[in-house]
């Protein structure tokens, strides 16, 4: 398993050797800052409303800024992550380097994990940079640190699951665009499939990604949500492994 490191290092370098990583990071920062500003502005406006005083308990920073901000960022991740994962394996095929990797004395597991971890590091960089918005809140306001922290844990797990699904899609094709479209399609279906169903007692409701993300934005880290994301990540990586293995046996 010590071959993970060279794969990871090369992948990360390759992200930053092209403009792709920079463009993704910048676009993500701009969008997240813009939405953060919009929610904050909305919050400031509503404070001037006479009705505000009656509902003080409900209309606080957490409910009006932090929770919707995390909800929006989760959708931005849904749109951006297919672009991060699309090249991971598809590009190895296109540049014929798959033959190098698969004839080297390293396990398929190490290849997939190395690539996955590289994408995960890019995700962490994106999330850390966007946390500047939260520091602004901390300096000028009094947000619930617990909710902010759990929100970021949620975003990380959500993004990590998206990446795992994306690497699976990338293992299916040699065309980056096809890989990105498959990822986006699968994610949207997973996102919406049970949006109208309750989380408990309904299979569709349990499968739906959105139902497992909401609690994090409210400061709740529940075991069932952790298990859900853990399963999704494992499933994505396992399917990627299976896809690559079976391709060679065909």
């Amino acid at each position: 398993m010590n071959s993970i490191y060279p794969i990871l290092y090369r992948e990360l370098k390759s992200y930053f050797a092209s403009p792709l990583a920079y463009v993704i990071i910048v676009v993500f920062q701009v969008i997240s800052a813009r939405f953060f500003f919009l929610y904050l502005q909305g919050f400031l406006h509503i404070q001037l409303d006479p009705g505000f005083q009656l509902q003080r308990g409900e209309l606080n920073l957490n409910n009006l800024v932090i929770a919707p901000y995390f909800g929006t960022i989760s959708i931005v991740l849904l749109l951006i992550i297919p672009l991060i994962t699309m090249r991971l394996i598809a590009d190895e095929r296109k540049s014929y380097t798959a033959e190098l990797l698969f004839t080297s004395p390293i396990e398929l597991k190490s290849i997939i994990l190395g690539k996955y971890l590289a994408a995960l590091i890019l995700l962490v960089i994106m999330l850390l940079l966007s946390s500047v918005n939260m520091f602004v809140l901390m300096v000028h306001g009094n947000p619930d640190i617990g909710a902010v922290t759990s929100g970021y844990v949620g975003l990380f797990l959500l993004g990590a699951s998206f990446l795992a699904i994306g690497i699976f899609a990338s293992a299916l094709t040699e065309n980056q665009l096809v890989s990105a479209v498959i990822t986006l399609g699968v994610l949207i279906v997973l996102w919406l499939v049970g949006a109208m169903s309750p989380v408990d007692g309904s299979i569709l409701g349990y499968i739906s990604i959105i139902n497992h993300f909401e609690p994090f934005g409210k400061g709740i880290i529940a075991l069932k949500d952790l298990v859900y994301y853990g399963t999704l990540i494992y499933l994505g990586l396992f399917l990627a492994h299976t896809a690559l293995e079976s391709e060679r046996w065909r």
Partner: protein
Amino acid sequence: MIHVHNLTKNYGSLRAVENISFELEKGDVLGFLGPNGAGKTTTMRIITGYMPPTKGSVRIENIDIFDHPLEAKKQIGYLPENPPLYNDMSVADYLDFVADIKKVPSKEKRSRLLYVMDHCGIIGVSKRIIAHLSKGYKQRVGIAQALINNPSVLVLDEPTNGLDPVQIIEIRELIKSLAGERTIILSTHILPEVTMICSRVIIINKGRIALEESLESLSQNLKSKENLYLKLRQYGESVIDKIESIENISKVNTSAPGEYVIVPSNGVDVRDELAMMAVANNWGLLELRPLTHTLEEVFLKVISSEG
């Protein structure tokens, strides 16, 4: 060194390779010949462990490549048909990466890197980005990549494909210099290349071995079937009869007036007799030379008789 036993590979209902077996010893350079689509690349991909065969086995240094892939793959260097290069990396970074995934011990890494870059003549471009290199240099980087783990088995899939004549000669020299301490399998459809580099030849057609021979016995074989070409200034009806009267000549054909192709029986050299006869009869001997069978002719014969 390499034992290939009864390899068969099906792609769905298509049988790409059928019952291929051969053994190679240390120092052998095997030329793997065949028309496009004959199954050369498939066979090489199976030998290098890129994909498993439908039936059969491959052992490298007595290690089965599918039972112990990680051990066996350490012994192999492989240059696929298209060199597996990361275009966004510099040559040195790329080779460093390959050394890592090929498990070159970190103590030896630096010296191996210098050795392969020196041997393949790419030290001068080591800092350059691979995407900006010419095709010939890319091919060299591809070969350097295959050599980095000091493999005992080197598998090269059409190493001179698409290069210009000067580059082809350089790459051939490079391959020749690599033989000796290693076993090399080389596929090509450029036949003279085989005569220049290889010690053994396998011709493969439609997935099967059509001919397997050492280059020595192959060229012996070719010589023994040598015909003679004779061109005379004076010619007439009687010439053929007179030539046929010489001992050990089985047949005389005439292709144009004054031009004859003489088939000696059992490879006996009849040039002396022919020359003397020509002089004695005052035929005006213009040309007398052996018509060598080239590897090309053998190849075509083998391929077409199979078909």
